[in-house]
């Protein structure tokens, strides 16, 4: 799915979610990212003040995106900004892990 290079959406994670521990909290973040990708946008995800994410939260956000769009689309169209290295590593490691698992 090709993106329009001029359409970039910035999503502030902590503006979307009330926490980063449950799958219910992840639902609104997933919805925003999904809508942006469906609209052909690229997404810059601001990780400012994001608390450490549980596996359930990652499953219901990035995991669901992975199932819908595939790893390559996520790599091509979602970038992190205003992040700590440990946050970037956590998401990258998660995506690498699930890409090796068969669901």
């Amino acid at each position, binding site marked *: 799915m090709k993106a329009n290079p001029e359409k970039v959406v910035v999503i502030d994670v902590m503006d979307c979610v009330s926490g980063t*521990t449950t*799958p219910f909290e992840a639902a609104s973040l997933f919805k925003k990212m999904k809508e942006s990708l469906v609209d052909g946008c690229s997404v810059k995800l601001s990780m400012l003040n994001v608390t450490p994410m549980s596996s359930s939260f990652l*499953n219901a956000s990035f995991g669901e995106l992975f199932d819908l769009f595939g790893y390559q689309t996520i*790599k091509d169209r979602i*970038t992190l*900004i205003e992040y700590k290295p440990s946050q970037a590593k956590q998401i990258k490691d998660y*995506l690498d892990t699930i890409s090796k*698992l068969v669901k």
Partner: protein
Amino acid sequence: MFNAYVFQAKDYFNRHFFSDKDLQPLNTSLTELFNNVVDHSESKVGGYVFTQYFPNKHQIVISVCDFGNGIPKTINLYLEKMGRNVGSHLDALQLAFKKGFSTESTPTNRGLGLDNIASIVKSMKSDLLIISNDVCLNQKPDGSVKKELMPEGFPGTLVVISFNTKHLKPLEIEDIVHAEYTL
């Protein structure tokens, strides 16, 4: 609700005992265990948690318990439903730790939670004990795992993690990076 407990526990231990240590392993373990109770246990009374620091033993012990179906029963019911071979309760509890194995009790589960917990505990050379139905599994500080059947069953699941506080890492303040990061 459990967000509040997780943050309060971390805050309490940070303020009173470990102001310069990274307590994220405690947070992550509590969160994963709470999610397991909510997602898998079908416990009619929710779950119970107990956290205590034992300074003489250099241990923070966290215990999370539910009175749901139990891990082995849940797994074997799932395997039966999927037309797969049903093994012993010992085999079922071992399967629960396999990365990627999930009973799909919620649509988004991917079978990473217990593996996460086991990895964290192992990295901290700490002890993990799980009692569920009639099975006891103990992952010792050296990483070895012992499983055994118990003569009396437990109506649910009890998880006890004894964190060795001597292996807590120093707290590092990370700088915010502004350059874009490609996943």
